[in-house]
């Protein structure tokens, strides 16, 4: 019986590990110059001390990681918190325990996941972290107390969880509704900060305006619009391979610089050492010229993509021919090649990251309308579809947000492509808040949306494809309801065989992007991080969310 159990546990881990490692192995493949990877791989011994200064080009809307979805929260605030599991900063292809004490145990029926917790983890106020804190954390994420004003945009990613239990002081247990291929890796979500149960009990929204975690850095100060400062947590539980206490840094200072050019200049003038989101190729080249001997660069594909989202509740976008025409008009390959020289978009792909573990082959992708390589034929077909739909001279307002990179160049590219088939799109640019308000109210015709995730995982990338009135509420801005598509997404989520899952995901892409043309990607992003060489111990990943707790980052002496 025990052997059987072990075999089953081994199976689930094998599935998960295959997915995670497969995903990350292909997602990372960073291009590097300078020596950050080398410093991780070995050779150099980390030097403790110093303050890391980095740029964050947006202000966190609140301090609550469970509530927000922006990197602007993670970059300055993640160093204050721990997670249950996290991606290994020394090898982003692996998931390692953070406050968990080892790997999870999965029951024979794959419906119960049990995790032992470390007993040496303390909150910054000195109280010990226990399973009650982890339970309160996951309860808040999975079943937020909406009556008390809590919200959790990632609750859907944990729809598989039926209950979170704390059987003893240092054990946490997740009861699942069905075996899930993605649940274990979702426990390494960078948003799932471990919060204090006592603080949440006293005020369910306490973490929106306060900081108190178990992470490697304690909170020092925050000046709105200026900076965020943290200092080393002397009681942090983490140690490196040699037994040296982490973190290496004495502290960090995040400079809030919203203007992209000013952000580049901060690094050029060495007022800041790094910016973790990404720069354009032009900005990278400018910095390379200005700091030829002081700069290192890491690059990697990025799990971020812009979507064209026609509002299916508004005429004529309720007509599938019009939606297909909008996609057919876009010459993605020419656009990707050209725009990659000046901004952060590059690869053509479907709903899953190109060349990622779930991506469809180039040949299959080319069969989808708008993703073929014969641009002239596609444009001719687009014109025919528009004429058939009775809107040969279609015009509409194209909703976009006022963030230059890459929203503006992508929109300019799309407007030009549409113009070539007789469509007049008026660029309707708004600040992020009114832009999101319009998206949520359905107050638009066609919008440029985006999706960024921390992992190549269909459950995450397909989250916005669920029916708008069901699981896709607040994410699906195309506003369709489609039971068939819901069934397909649900089926892939329950499929634990990787090859089968890839096939099911391909079927979803064909159905959602081609047959129904509900919403479709433009170009996938490409991440470029130029930074001062003295920053060591940080490795680029295929997202700008994970690996931000700064535990292993250190500063070389010169």
């Amino acid at each position: 019986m025990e052997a059987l159990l072990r075999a089953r546990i081994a199976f689930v881990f094998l599935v998960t590990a295959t997915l995670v490692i497969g995903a990350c192995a292909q997602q990372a493949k960073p291009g590097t110059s300078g020596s950050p990877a080398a410093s991780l791989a070995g050779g150099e011994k980390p030097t403790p001390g110093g303050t890391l200064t980095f740029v964050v080009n947006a202000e966190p809307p609140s301090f609550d990681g469970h509530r927000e979805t922006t990197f602007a929260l993670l970059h300055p605030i993640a160093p204050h918190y721990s997670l249950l599991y996290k991606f290994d900063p020394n090898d982003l292809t692996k998931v390692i325990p953070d406050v968990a004490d080892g790997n999870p145990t999965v029951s024979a029926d794959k419906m119960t996941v049990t995790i032992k917790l470390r007993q040496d983890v303390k909150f910054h106020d000195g109280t010990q972290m226990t399973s009650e804190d982890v339970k309160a954390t996951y309860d808040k994420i999975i079943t937020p107390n909406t009556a008390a004003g809590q919200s959790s945009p990632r609750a859907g990613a944990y729809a598989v969880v039926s209950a979170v239990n704390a059987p003893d002081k240092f054990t946490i247990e997740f009861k699942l509704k069905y075996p899930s291929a993605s649940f274990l890796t979702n426990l390494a979500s960078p948003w799932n900060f471990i919060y204090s149960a006592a603080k949440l009990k006293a005020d369910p929204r306490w973490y929106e305006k306060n900081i108190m975690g178990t992470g490697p850095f304690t909170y020092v100060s925050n000046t709105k619009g200026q900076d965020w400062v943290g200092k080393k947590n002397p009681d942090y539980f983490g140690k490196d391979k040699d037994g040296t206490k982490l973190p290496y840094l004495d502290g960090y200072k995040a400079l809030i610089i919203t203007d992209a050019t000013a952000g580049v200049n901060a690094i050029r003038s060495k007022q800041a050492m790094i910016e973790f989101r990404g720069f354009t190729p032009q900005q990278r080249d400018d910095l390379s010229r200005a700091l030829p001997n002081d700069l290192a660069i890491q690059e990697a594909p990025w799990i971020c993509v812009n979507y064209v989202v026609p509002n299916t509740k508004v005429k004529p976008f309720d007509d599938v021919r019009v939606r297909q025409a909008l996609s057919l008009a876009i010459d993605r390959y020419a656009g990707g090649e050209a725009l990659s020289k000046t901004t952060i978009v590059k690869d053509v792909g479907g709903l899953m990251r190109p060349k990622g573990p779930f991506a469809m082959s180039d040949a299959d992708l080319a069969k989808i309308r708008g993703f073929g390589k014969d641009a002239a034929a596609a444009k001719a077909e687009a014109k025919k579809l528009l004429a058939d739909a009775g809107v040969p001279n279609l015009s509409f307002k194209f909703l976009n947000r006022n963030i230059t990179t890459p929203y503006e160049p992508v929109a300019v590219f799309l407007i030009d492509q549409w113009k070539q088939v007789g469509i007049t799109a008026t660029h309707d640019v708004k600040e992020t808040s009114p832009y999101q308000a319009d998206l949520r109210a359905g107050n638009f015709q066609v919008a440029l949306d985006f999706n960024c995730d921390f992992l190549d995982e269909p459950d995450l990338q397909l989250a916005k494809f669920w029916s708008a009135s069901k699981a896709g509420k607040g994410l699906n801005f195309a506003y369709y309801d489609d039971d068939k598509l819901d069934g397909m997404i649900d089926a892939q989520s329950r499929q634990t065989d990787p090859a089968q899952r890839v096939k099911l995901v391909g079927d979803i892409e064909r159905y959602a992007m081609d047959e129904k043309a509900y919403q479709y990607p433009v170009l996938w992003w490409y991440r470029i991080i130029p930074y001062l060489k003295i920053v060591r111990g940080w490795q680029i990943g295929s997202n700008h969310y994970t690996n931000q707790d700064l535990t292993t980052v250190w500063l070389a002496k010169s």
Partner: protein
Amino acid sequence: MTERATALESEAEALARRRYFESTPRKRFVRFWREFITRRPLGAFGLVLVLAMILAALLADRIAPYDPTAISFKDLLAPPSPEHLLGTDNFGRDVFSRLLFGARTALLVGFTASIVGCTLGLILGIVGAYFGGRVDQIIQRLMDVLLSFPLIVIAIAVVAALGTGEDKIANVIAAITVPIIPRVSRVVRSSALSVVQMPYIEATRAVGARAMRIMFRHIAPNVFAPYLIMMTAFLGQAILLEASLSFLGLGVFEPTPSWGLMLRGAGMQFLERAPWLAIAPGVAISLAVFGFNLFGDSLRDALDPRLRTA
């Protein structure tokens, strides 16, 4: 004074009067501009710049060698060449064509904002001067409030309240119009105050003319000179303000050609690699403002009898 001198003076006066009455408005108009061009070369140069800008805007469709919004992937960031006189931007769009079409945005915003702003300022200035008392107090305190903020601050506040967008150019115009009003109102009021004291205004009142007729039939023509001068001066400022708002991301949006937008977007981002992207719209804005200012200053001198040369 001798008899002969007196006779000569009355003869000259009679000649001048006859010439004036013999001349048609058209002749007077031609004479004014001929004198303006010959006696005020700087103003004439400003006028040439202004006319060149207006012609560029009007004939942009015919002059521009390329569609200003058409992307050309093979020409990304191409330097100036015979094919692209002022080079291309990061989308391969012809900078010269965008500059010509950008003049339309600048002039549309500049002319509309300065005409509407100056006219509203004229009305408020005349109304305040004519009625005086509480009406004047209220108008002038309101103008004081608006004057206490710099031009750009009010413009940003207005555009932030009304919203921006490619189809909301009227909001940008309104944002530029609002700060112009108090400045014109103040100048017009001071001129109108002296006109209001004139005997003929008293006479008009005495014969029972209504306030509206007195203000806009008898006072307005007498304060038209400062109004016209302020309008030309604010045209340049309005163009600069539109460029500033676009530069700050509060004006029109891509892919609409606009000088401020050209300066802000690719102009800043590719300053080192492609300096022509910033130089072309920068020079255009400078020349436009310079032209309107030169022209406005000279027009003021030409219209002001105290500064008029013999």
